[in-house]
């Protein structure tokens, strides 16, 4: 049995707002299945006494002090946006799907 179905891929694509063709759905389902099966082989060697790895470096509690640092210049930020208005990012109307 495959680790991921074509329907799973279609669902994920819709959640990620990615439009995929029928052909792409089939292709990606096959490719993702290979990846997931390979990753799943790790669980075959992981014994109960080995905790899941959270981070490549085994450290905890990396905090910074609550100190304000300079923010970016607004004009240069908005210059990179596809559209801006009144100092704000202008985005297409939201929630078409409602």
């Amino acid at each position, binding site marked *: 049995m495959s680790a991921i179905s074509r329907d799973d891929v279609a669902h994920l694509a819709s959640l*990620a707002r990615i439009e995929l063709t029928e052909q792409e759905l089939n292709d990606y389902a096959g490719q993702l299945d290979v990846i997931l099966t390979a990753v799943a082989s790790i669980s075959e060697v992981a014994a109960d006494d080995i905790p899941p790895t959270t981070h490549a470096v085994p450290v905890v509690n990396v905090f910074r002090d609550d100190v304000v640092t300079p923010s970016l210049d*607004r004009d240069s930020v*908005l210059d990179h946006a596809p559209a801006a*208005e009144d*100092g704000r990012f202008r985005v297409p109307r939201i929630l078409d799907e409602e």
Partner: protein
Amino acid sequence: MSAPLIDFDEVIANFDPVLGLEVHVELGTASKMFCGCATEFGADPNTQVCPTCLGLPGSLPVVNGTAVESAIRIGLALNCSIASWCRFARKNYFYPDMPKNFQTSQYDEPICYEGYLDVDVETDEGTRTFRVEIERAHMEEDTGKSLHVGGSTGRIHGADFSLVDYNRAGIPLIEIVTKPVEGAGKYAPEVAKAYVGALRELLRGLGVSDVKMEQGSLRCDVNLSLRASADAPLGTRTETKNVNSLRSVERAIRYEMQRQAALLTDGTAIIQETRHWHEDTGVTTSGRVKSDAEDYRYFPEPDLVPVAPSAEWIEQLRAQLPEPPAERSKRLREEWGISEKEMQSVINAGALDLVLATIAEGADPAASRKWWLGELARRANDEGVELESLAITAKQVADLEGLVQSGRLNDKLARQVIDGVLAGEGEPAAVADSRGLQIVSDDSALLEAIKAAIEADPDAAQKIRDGKVAAAGALVGSVMKATKGQADAARVRELVLQELGQ
């Protein structure tokens, strides 16, 4: 727009409400949760943003240590257990208010879990304590703010486009989630309001947030379902958002109970959905239907390392907690000599700290309560703001009371001084000066007005001469009118009686 409702008593007769509350608290840290951007409210749009909170490629988050400390302190104050090891998680969704396309939150490893908060509610049988159990309190970040432009209504539907400000994106949030609150029955709306009120006092006491509901630093979502009886399975719930004042918490629950009961009585199923509360019209309207689309695909945030507070750190924070609100309120009740109910109204009005500050500025407790819960509460209500947002300070209220005590103002004149202070005319004494407000204490000026009043109403004067001193009221009234309320009524009465040989 408004749905059919049934009478609240009928709801209670036929259904058992179960509620759940999710409160989001914006922490009062100087900088954001994962970057050093400032968190100041009301700054120009997009002036408090950086690569991290804009989700630009290559940026990396670093946790604000003070925010973690605040989260632990909140958990301890809510009698929660504190996780010895927990992680952040990505909550994945696409919406323009979150530029990273995920919100950094916590999923199955909240930093605080399993606590409770006891709240007092006035019932027909006197004050009753309800225990609201806390399921979890976790750390996350706030989203940006969207302004929807175009369309006819200004609401999301029909908007042509949206303008987004990311100043708020990344501000530390603590989300506090209750377990289902059962057994409140007809007091469900009051229990919810008392819980949010008590939580607000607790957070204020901890100094972790400014807890201003109208500015969104304390936000409440209300889950509500009805079932046929206390032993029936839970009904389908709705989640009402945008409940942004204590009064709305109570009203929104009452409304949802009445709306859901009407549907159920009619044999219609409740739809599991998000609803929006409208403060102005007092109704909720349908928002998003909860569906499979709410599949957030949480996974541990790979860019952050786990948070593992040591037992020593936790105990150190526990030792520094302020006096718990319930104990503080009991102590103050005794000091001020007031009932539980009176204390409850101070707390529910969000006035406790203001009253305490006014006392600290020299006013006595009774007068401090009187101003904040009376005249000032009325002004706040008229303006639709919280008490603490009124343009008058505790010091000014204490000074005002000082002017009353010294005999310069009576309550009526003091209210005019409040008008002036709220209008930005300056300190109470200055307002009294510039508006010429002063009790007329010069007896000769009063006597002149009294003589005129006697002349105008010889019948009343004769009655008093005949010993019917109760008739003095009419003459005192006309003197007060003639002096535009600037006289001391008690002194006028004395002088009237004296003048007429009594």
